[in-house]
């Protein structure tokens, strides 16, 4: 889900606590904790974890001396090395910045069917990823053979252009090399442990401030993080829910992709309506008629969602994209969303 969906869900979670709503009327900011908790998991990942990760294979091309074949060779050699040593490697692809708003795009592809790594130069793009007209140079493509079997993964070209480039974990699993996109994402930050930790911190902070609602503050913080984690389970890739007991990200419910507009809009709209309903419900006297509110005003949101699922399942039946590819595609989309934000 997009950041705003998680954030507003966290705020909505807080409004289910009547004492928090009453405190808010009296001037408290306790409900803000829900928003913070709602966005915390992605904040930890995209503002901290991604920079701490140490790459083993660093692709850092120069725009004037771009050699696609050399990059493809480096990537293929790295994958072969994992096959030979069974030791995990982190592959990081740096971007090429040309100026304040201009970037030289290139893209890489893991062709798991033919066992090849492919690299090609793209156009010059601005920070909104709009190509500069006629900036696509003629440049030889890179193609290198991979000599170990690969697990199916995201099958399209992954573009490397603006801000920070993507990274991949190359890991030996079930006698094949798995290419795990953006391995620092949805690990410890998206776990029950994080919900517990943030809830405890919120409670402790309010206790220290001598605020009577320290238990409520803790519960709002914990449930807001949990809401984020659970919303992410709706996608193709879940998260490492039981960290530190487990080390692998689970498979999600495969219902939506992170960047899908209608489900995100459904969550934001429903959360806003829940917030207003709860604020009204816990004030006296309530003015909203629940039947009219949920039966009439809310109706466009579930109808839009039904329309989305009907279209999605029809498309899924036709496409039959492998699960791993969908998961990695989801991660690519989510990272892109953060770049665009």
């Amino acid at each position: 889900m997009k950041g705003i969906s998680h954030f507003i869900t966290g705020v909505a979670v807080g409004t289910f606590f009547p004492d928090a709503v009453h405190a808010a009327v009296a001037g408290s900011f306790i409900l803000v904790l829900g928003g913070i908790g709602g966005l915390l998991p992605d904040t930890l990942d995209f503002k901290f974890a991604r920079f701490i990760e140490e790459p083993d294979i660093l692709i850092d091309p120069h725009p004037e001396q771009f050699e696609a074949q050399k990059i493809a060779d480096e990537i293929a050699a790295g994958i072969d090395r994992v096959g030979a040593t069974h030791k995990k490697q982190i592959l990081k692809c740096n971007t090429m910045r040309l100026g304040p708003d201009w970037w030289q795009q290139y893209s890489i592809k893991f062709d798991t069917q033919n066992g090849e790594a492919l690299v090609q130069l793209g156009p010059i793009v601005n920070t909104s990823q709009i190509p500069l007209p006629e900036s696509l140079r003629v440049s030889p493509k890179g193609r290198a053979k991979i000599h170990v079997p690969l697990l199916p993964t995201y099958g399209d070209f992954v573009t490397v252009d603006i801000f920070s480039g993507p990274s991949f974990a190359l890991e030996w699993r079930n006698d094949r090399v798995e290419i795990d996109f953006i391995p620092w994402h949805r690990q410890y930050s998206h776990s029950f442990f994080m919900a517990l930790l943030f809830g405890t911190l919120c409670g402790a902070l309010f206790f220290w401030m001598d605020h009577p609602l320290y238990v409520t503050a803790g519960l709002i913080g914990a449930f807001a993080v949990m809401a984020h984690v659970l919303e992410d389970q709706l996608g193709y890739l879940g998260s490492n829910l039981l960290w530190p007991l487990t080390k692998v990200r689970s498979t999600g419910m495969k219902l939506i992709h992170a960047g899908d507009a209608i489900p995100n809009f459904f969550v934001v709209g429903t959360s806003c309506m829940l917030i207003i309903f709860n604020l009204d419900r816990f004030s006296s006297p309530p003015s909203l008629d629940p039947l009219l509110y949920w039966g009439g005003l809310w109706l466009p949101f579930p109808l839009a969602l039904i329309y989305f699922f009907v279209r999605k399942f029809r498309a899924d039946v036709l496409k039959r994209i492998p699960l791993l590819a969908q998961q990695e595609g989801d991660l690519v989309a989510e990272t892109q969303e953060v770049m665009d934000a």
Partner: protein
Amino acid sequence: MNAEILPLALYAIVGTLLASLLALIPALHVYNIAGIFILFAVSAQKFIGGDELAMLLLGMIVGYAMLNTVSAIFLGAPDDSTIFIVLPGQKYLLMSRGYEAAALTGIGGLGGIVILILLAPFAETLFGTLRAIVLPHLHWILAVIIVYMLMAEWPKGGDRGATGLARLWDAWKGLGAGILTFALSGILGMVLMYASPVPTERAFQNLLPAFVGLFAVPWVMDNILSGAKIPPQHIAKTFDAPPAMIARGVFSGALGGLFAAFFPVVTGGVGGYLAGHATAQRDDRVFIISQGTSKFLYYVGAFWLFFLPAARIVKGGMSGMLATIYTPAGYDLYYVSVGLIALCGVLSFFLLLLYSRAAVWLVQKVNYRYISIATMFLLVALVYFFTGVGGLFVMLVAVPIGWLPVLWGSRRMNCLGVLLVPITLNLAGLGPTVAEWLRLI
């Protein structure tokens, strides 16, 4: 009432034509002039009635909401509500498509008119009920918006560095600059609210020098220093925006604009930004259209709410000033106001196309650096004219704060701390305490 509509319509059209000229002067806000008009109206009440004055101001705000795009895109001098349009607008300008960008915002504005007409019969129930529910909660809702603005700014660096800490520092430089910009502009806002150097008799212009310093001057200086060259511009006869794209932009902008029109301090740009996230926008054209809608509904919608017969919501500078001397009455006037918004909006759209052509001619004939230098002189002169030496001082303090995002590549939206911080604190009852900490009182 019918016989009275014609003169009211004439006043509204005059207001639109007047605002259309004022909107071309960079950073000159319609509220600056409206304030003078209202002061004038107090002493000239036998010449102009309350309804006539209200419709004159309505026409002005419609014209301004549609046409302030021209100075933002072609002169690069934005204000608090056009700050989001400048970046894609100037990008379009550099791609020879400045006229198209201006027209797309106009299409967004026309979409905003349609939304207002559709909402008109239900607005009283909808906004009246909503206001009753959220009124005691405004402080934390604004705090939630602030937290989201700060948390949803993601790092734009961090690729290079020998160690994790070095990369983290590289990534956090921009984020830190964003937080610093917000904090400093927030403190500036507190100073302006509690110990403004702007003379008391010009208090209604209090924010003008801060906005000019935070938003307009850094952008214009950037254009002067970078020596940006404007390529030959193309006057498009058709627009590369299919109906579905326009609908998406208008829908998203309507959500943001109505949110901004209703909630205190939230500007059209911020409303559009939040709605853009909520509706998963990715296309520049959708973004520009949505900002056009959002900006239009932010200004016009807020004033329109003032005419709601029973709910009468006073939000925004225009209705705030007018409410001191006038109270609109009845459903007739409400629906007349809706009709005149549509009339003046359509007129403004055609004026927008006309003025954009003139602006295209200007940026092609005159060196853009000279235009930017002239704009800079105009900005300084305006600040001095409206707020005196005290205002110039405020502007000089605001400029380095507004320059921080330019230097560090962080979001310029963080400058809105100048509004968000003092108002949020005051709504929570903490304003005087914080002002005391800052030794402002």
